[in-house]
């Protein structure tokens, strides 16, 4: 007796909403492609909600001494904006693209554990729902996305918002852990036989290394969250300084998760960029082994630099110094990657599709974010700028200018594969340029605003010199971004209404997922092309100019 199900027919199509009982199958599916699509919809949904929260914040901050939004409400809005964007928008979009494409890119027909895959998705959904239920039960969490103790403890956070935050994050964390386990085991055991581990497409490699980062970092968060929950619900004393506990311990636990978390959010983005740029530059990636090896370095070092989020809490100069030195060091592998991507562009024949535009703008904007980050590694600079809008500018340049741009690049690149329809290039370019303009308008000047001293997480501010005008410009930029996302949503809607038209490899891309029909059938591959290099489809289509044989 076997415990596995057989797929009846190799040409069986994915269930669509239009076929009989199509909708119900989406709830029970264990097919990685459907789950991937659901992750992407989840991410889009929460991205819109998080974006609306951001709009409320920006409108409130447009003029000094504004009383549009009450301070208690504002605190909830910025907490939920951060938590939503990180855990419910960025993580799902990256994990979702991975869930969809990792099996396809390694020539497998499924993930290693399909039911774990489905479980991870649905528990992430549950976590998101629980987090937002808090709005209706007395108030959302209002202690910041990092919920510092003792503000997050019972005596200062009187509503149940923080409890929903804790439980919501534990659930989404379980989802991420499940997906990470799946990624790691899938890549190690389900590759097509000819594909050795050092021949992986870079998106797969980055997601693979990322899986280990998730496995190492999320337990640290869970430990802290659990202790906070026990503090709040069972009156324990972990983080209450007045009763012998330690509020700093929360910070240590949170940031020893939090720093690997930011690398968790950027490594798959690096992977997407490493797929997109070679395809649209019509060249193989420059320095594959350096990009892949530097990813390993980033993953290992990321566990050792969390102290740089805590330079202002009063640790001694000795401790701060070591964390500072390690933080400088960790900038190096990322720099190596940027050099390699530019090297890929050099002497390439570049097609300026929307996806490529986002990738190129990623290079520029993420580098700005990276540079502002390295400036923080200088401890005295950090002391001046910590908790100001300079930090807000930095984190948006790396999260938006980095992860989100890469996610957009990936979506425009892979949309024809997922749906069989090409997103409109015209609308795409409007989306791209409006979004980038709005983004830089909002956040570039916030570096200056931070240096002028405006603190973070304040619901309004006094009319100090230049603060008002800089905030006003930021808000205009936010409105432009809002319009750009509207165009993006319209693009998706209009494209989905069209009939499927795309061929299997509209971009003449190199990796295995493009060897399937668009969209792929339920069974990904009936027959696989031969895999002897890192670009199997290039070898297939250019037999006279094959890549070096690697296996």
């Amino acid at each position, binding site marked *: 007796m076997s415990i596995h199900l057989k797929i009846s027919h190799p040409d069986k199509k994915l269930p669509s909403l239009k076929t009989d009982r199509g909708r119900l199958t989406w709830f029970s599916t264990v097919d990685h492609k459907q789950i991937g699509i659901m992750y992407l919809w989840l991410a889009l949904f929460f991205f819109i909600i998080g974006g609306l929260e951001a709009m409320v914040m920006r409108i409130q901050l447009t003029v000094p001494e504004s009383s549009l939004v009450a301070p208690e409400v504002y605190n909830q809005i910025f907490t939920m904006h951060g938590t939503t964007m990180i855990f419910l928008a960025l993580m799902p979009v990256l994990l979702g693209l991975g869930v969809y494409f990792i099996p396809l890119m390694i020539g497998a027909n499924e993930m290693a554990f399909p039911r774990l895959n489905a479980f991870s998705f649905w528990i992430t959904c549950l976590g998101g729902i629980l987090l937002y239920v808090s709005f209706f039960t007395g108030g959302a969490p209002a202690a910041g996305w990092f919920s510092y103790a003792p503000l997050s403890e019972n005596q200062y956070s009187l509503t149940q918002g923080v409890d929903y935050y804790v439980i919501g994050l534990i659930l989404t964390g379980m989802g991420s852990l499940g997906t990470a386990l799946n990624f790691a085991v899938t890549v190690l055991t389900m590759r097509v036989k000819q594909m050795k*581990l*050092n021949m992986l497409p870079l998106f797969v490699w980055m997601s693979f290394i990322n899986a280990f980062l998730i496995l190492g970092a999320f337990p640290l968060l869970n430990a802290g969250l659990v202790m906070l929950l026990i503090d709040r619900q069972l009156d324990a004393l972990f983080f209450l300084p007045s009763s012998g506990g330690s509020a700093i311990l929360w910070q240590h636990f949170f940031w020893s998760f939090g720093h690997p978390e930011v690398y968790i959010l950027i490594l798959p983005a690096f992977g997407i960029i490493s797929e997109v740029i070679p395809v649209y530059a019509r060249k193989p990636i420059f320095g*594959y*082994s*350096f990009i*892949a*090896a*530097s990813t*390993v*370095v980033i993953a*290992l*070092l990321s*566990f*050792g630099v969390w102290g740089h989020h805590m330079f202002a809490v009063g640790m*001694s100069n*000795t*401790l701060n110094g*070591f964390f500072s*030195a*390690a933080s400088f*060091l960790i900038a190096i592998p990322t720099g190596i990657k940027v050099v390699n991507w530019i090297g890929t562009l050099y002497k390439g024949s570049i097609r300026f599709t929307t996806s490529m535009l986002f990738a190129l703008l990623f290079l520029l904007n993420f580098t700005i974010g990276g540079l502002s980050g390295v400036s923080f590694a200088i401890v005295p600079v950090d002391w001046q700028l910590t908790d100001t809008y300079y930090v807000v500018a930095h984190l948006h340049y790396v999260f938006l200018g980095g992860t989100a741009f890469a996610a957009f690049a990936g979506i425009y690149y892979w949309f024809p594969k997922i749906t069989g329809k090409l997103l409109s290039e015209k609308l795409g370019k409007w989306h791209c340029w409006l979004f980038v303009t709005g983004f830089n308008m909002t956040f570039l000047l916030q570096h200056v605003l931070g240096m002028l001293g405006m603190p973070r997480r304040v619901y309004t501010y006094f009319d100090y010199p230049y603060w008002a005008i800089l905030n006003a410009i930021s808000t205009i930029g936010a409105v432009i971004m809002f319009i750009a996302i509207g165009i993006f949503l319209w693009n998706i809607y209009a494209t989905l209404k069209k009939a499927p038209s795309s061929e299997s490899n509209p971009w003449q891309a190199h990796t295995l997922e493009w060897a399937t029909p668009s969209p792929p059938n339920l069974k990904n591959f009936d027959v696989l092309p031969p895999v002897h290099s890192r670009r199997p489809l290039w070898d297939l289509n250019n037999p006279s100019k094959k890549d070096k044989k*690697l296996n």
Partner: protein
Amino acid sequence: MSLKDYFLISENWSLAWAIVLIILFVGYVIGLRPGFKKQLFMLGACTLTYLTLGSPLQGLLNFGLHSVVMLQQVVILMVVPLFIWAGIPSKNCLKIGRKLPPQYKNALVITIWFIGTLSMWIAHFMSAASLSARSGLAICGIVMAPNTWLTKIPNTLLLLVLLGIGILFLFPVFTKNINFKLKPLNAVIYLFTACVSCSLLGLWVAFSAASTVVTEVAPLLTTLRNPLPLSLKTDQELAGMIMWVPGCVLYVATSAHIALKWLEGEKQTDLNIITHQKESH
């Protein structure tokens, strides 16, 4: 006297160790006939060993400096073995461990891992106890009576044993013997898990510095005639951070090197050496 003067006094530098290490290095060059790059690594290993065992650093130990103990142990346990392995020519690497039966690979690797990580913990406890006995202070919560048998163990012996263990620890990573060489990703995990173990102790040492009561009571004891004036708290924090940050960075660099070579597909050379050896016998 200032630190600079202390290091410039020639009596503080050991002539005996210099002679021993020069003889060892010359013997290595004549006996093994290595290439230039490997000679550089071995020279680095010898220099670092000399700096650890024969330089004024040894003398600084008398002032009860925890950070000096740590620096010595990190260099001799983590850095020097790396350089030594990098300096051994490939054909000699092959000969090491050739007679070991291949089916014990997993057991051997795990045993060696435990010996390596435990030795770091044990060595630290021993030297902390010894330091506490000699200086009368509580080091990391360890308090020792002044005449325990621990103080009779010469620091040099401890460091030499550590050197041996360090070399043994890196055997599964650097051996060219295909039966015992760890696969590249496994080697990275092997090194990383050792780093975690080492970091835990280092973090303990560093973060407990702020809370030991003795700090407040005797902040100046280590500064009398000490050319390196550090308060007890700073000394302990420095010790803790030295334990894990430099060593782990070096292991990460080693992992990067392993990953790079593997990604560029260097597996062929290992196999060639094996087949060549088989044929010549």
